[in-house]
């Protein structure tokens, strides 16, 4: 009995891998890496995680978790717009989920291209939202740079997520 209980617990823990890995990616994107010349920009690793898990295991990264992770990021990075990342992540998850068949078990380049479109849309949305709320068109340079660096780092994030994916129990769907 104790044995089976432990097995079940272990199963529960591994089912949390998508949520935990996404949270970990949020924290990583906030470490001070000091990219010279570009201020405090970091790739949005969380977006990669949401892209990955929505394609492969949307059941383990439900809407509520995506919402919570977005709020977590917003509270942590000191933005005056708490909820903006949550909004972006929710929209991203919905968009990816709708186009899931395009990406499921397709070559990596297809995934990368899909992520390029997703990241561009997300940063465009973020730029537009902040510009409207601030009544001031922000310079798009840093948003473009963050989108580029996020897309460029996708292979790294994707590889790490694939490693984490091995720990997740298989599912029929």
């Amino acid at each position, binding site marked *: 009995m104790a044995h089976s209980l432990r097995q079940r617990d272990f199963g529960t823990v591994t089912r949390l891998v998508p949520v935990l890995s996404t949270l970990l990616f949020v*924290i*990583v*994107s*906030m*470490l*001070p*890496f*000091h*990219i*010279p*010349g*570009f*201020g*405090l*920009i*970091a790739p*949005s690793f969380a977006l990669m995680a949401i892209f990955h898990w929505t394609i492969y295991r949307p059941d383990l990264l439900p*809407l*509520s978790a995506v*919402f919570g992770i*977005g*709020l*977590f990021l917003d*509270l*942590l*990075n*000191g*933005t*005056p*717009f*708490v*909820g*903006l990342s*949550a*909004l972006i992540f*929710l*929209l991203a998850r*919905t968009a990816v989920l709708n186009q899931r068949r395009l990406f499921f078990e397709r070559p990596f380049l297809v995934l990368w291209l899909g992520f390029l479109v997703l990241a561009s849309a997300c*940063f465009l949305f*973020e*730029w537009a*939202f*902040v510009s409207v*709320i*601030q009544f*001031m068109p*922000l*310079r798009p*340079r*840093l*948003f473009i*740079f*963050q989108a580029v660096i996020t897309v460029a780092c996708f292979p790294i994030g994707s590889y790490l997520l694939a490693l984490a994916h091995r720990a997740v129990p298989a599912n029929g769907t």
Partner: protein
Amino acid sequence: MRLSAPVKAAAQRLTLPFLIFVSALFAVLGKADILLFDHARVLLADTLSPVFSLATKPIATVSDAVATVEDVFSVYRQNQELREENDRLLRWQEAARRLAAENADLRGLIRFAPQGAVSSIAAQVIADSGGAYLRNVMVNVGSNDGIQRGQIAMTGEGLVGRVVEVGTHTSRILLLTDINSHIPVTIESTHDRAVLDGDNADQPRLAYLQAKSEVIAGSRIVTSGSGGIFPPGLPVGVVSSTGGMRVQPYADLSRLEILRIIDFGLDGVLLQSAMPAPKPARGAKSNADASR
């Protein structure tokens, strides 16, 4: 409690619109400084600070190592530069001594009361916002170390920003490049007043300049002290040569590692804003008293 299948399906269908609505609402309301968010931020930052402190260490080690290798390759050139600089500085030292003596004489003449004793504390940057429109950093000191909202963050070179959020052992520094940063400044050569507005660019913008005032590239910009948040005379940067009334900050904001958080004992307009100032810790109280 078990829900019937149709109710469950309806709830599932409504989750997405509901969550999207809530997050959009939050994001729009956020400009109104909701107290709950402030408390949640502080709590989260305090809770996660050990994680950030730990994770920052290897990064600091790597960047130190890279810097060391760079140093080795440039030793010869640096040595020559340093000799020249040393010559120049020796002359300045002489000038400074003369000026200090003169200053002391003049102060005696006008019975100048120097600003109250200033206390300061060193802080390590443990996290940054990492966003395209956010310019702030989190540091590893908080109210336990005597940090209070409104205190000033500087590097050896110049002004960095001010403390906007204080936890028990973390605080957040709003950098002078953030879109919410507006610092009253003076152009040192002409004594013209202006406001240094962050607009998310690396070089903040000089705003509210008098129409006739002339701004020459290379002019020093210092804080003016208006508003009572920043004391007058802190070095901020120089007017950029790229034009457009922009200021290149003295502090390298892209590579902040160690900051000085300085208590000038000022309680300007900041304290009247939504968030009450946290109660200073015991150590801080003595500092604050000393500075008054």
